[in-house]
């Protein structure tokens, strides 16, 4: 099964501050989507995340308790009586191989065929996904061999590869890999030869382009 192999080939993982922020529930929604999508494919980060959630359990356990209202238990039992029956565990996704893990499919409204691509420049396409406004997240489609304009970052940028691969100053990023770029980093990602590259990219600040004209449409030669 392809799914099982995926978890062993990932080389670039999430950082501790992102996993702890996701466990604490304080990341912008756009970043949470990248974390949830990576964790869906990566048992290493799933286990690390569970560790940070266990810290949350310990914090809850040590919290000073705050008295509940007098009729609280009875009110909760009434809530339970009104609730719809248990949600069953979903099993359909497990047998089928999707390009997009489930959290991403929930935002797209389906797998890769359901994406509403818009042309950016040349053959580069993007689709912005709806999230809260404290950060943004988009799918990027970069034809194999093409370079993105080199750029720096004002905030944090998370790039997760879903199909194909890209190469930059930090190495080769393939399916499941995440690159975490911050203010110190300037890079020129280039889509690797092979299948066209599809990435999920989240940013909490606009990018800073260093060239006068974005070189987005220039095909990269001779990788």
């Amino acid at each position, binding site marked *: *099964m392809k799914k*099982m192999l995926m978890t062993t080939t990932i080389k670039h993982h999430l*950082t*501790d*501050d*992102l996993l*702890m*922020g996701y*466990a*604490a*529930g*304080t*990341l912008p*929604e756009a*970043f949470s989507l990248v*974390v*949830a*999508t990576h964790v*869906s494919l990566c*048992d*290493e980060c799933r286990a*690390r995340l*569970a560790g*940070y*959630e*266990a*810290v*949350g*359990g*310990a*914090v*809850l*356990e*040590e*919290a*000073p*308790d*705050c*008295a*509940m*209202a007098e009729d*609280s*238990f009875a*009110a*909760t*039992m009434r*809530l*339970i009586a009104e*609730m719809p029956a*248990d*949600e069953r*565990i979903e*099993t359909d*996704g497990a047998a089928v191989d999707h390009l997009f*893990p*489930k*959290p991403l499919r929930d*935002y797209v409204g389906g797998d890769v065929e359901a994406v509403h691509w818009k042309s950016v420049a040349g053959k580069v396409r993007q689709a912005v996904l709806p999230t*809260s406004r404290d950060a943004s997240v988009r799918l990027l489609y970069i034809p194999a061999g093409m370079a993105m304009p080199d750029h720096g970052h004002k905030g*944090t940028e998370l790039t997760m590869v879903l199909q194909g691969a890209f190469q930059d100053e930090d190495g080769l990023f393939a399916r499941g890999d995440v690159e975490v770029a911050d203010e110190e980093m300037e890079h020129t990602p280039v889509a690797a030869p092979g299948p066209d590259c599809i990435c999920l990219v989240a940013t909490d600040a606009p990018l800073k382009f260093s060239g006068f004209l974005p070189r987005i449409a220039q095909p990269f030669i001779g990788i």
Partner: protein
Amino acid sequence: MNERKTSDARWVRLVERVRSEKDQSAFAELFGHFAPRVKAFLMKSGADEALAEECAQEVMATVWNKAQLFDPERASVATWVFTIARNRRIDALRKQRRPEPEDLPWGPEHEPDQSETIALQQESEQLGKALAALPENQRVLIERAYFGELSHSEIAAETGLPLGTIKSRIRLALERLRHEMK
């Protein structure tokens, strides 16, 4: 720090009774312990008392309703309740959707492995003790992160907590699960 009178293993048994027998007295015991802590957690996170009371009731109703999804080989009951409370907070206070990783459930016929369950619960208790034993300023920083007062870039990656053992325990559980899924 308040002394723990009940071990994490006991909470696991209570959740199992809620799941298999819809046992209201087991649920009442869970409620008595966790509801006031969830309410305090939500108030520390910025909810006023009325909202915290309402959300704490909803969190406990979810505990009842989703008891069959609790996996004692991968989390303590406190951790599981924390994740439900956290998600309720994101929904009610931040008004945001919460993307969750694709679930990896054991098959319906899976019986939790007793020794793995006990080991995970013990490690969770040790983590709680380690948190309580941290220097005051470090512990407060971690609590503030979980109450939602710090952004991810303000979170120091080094928490000083023994997370390695829990991580490898869960990693093992995931490997056995992947093996079962084959």
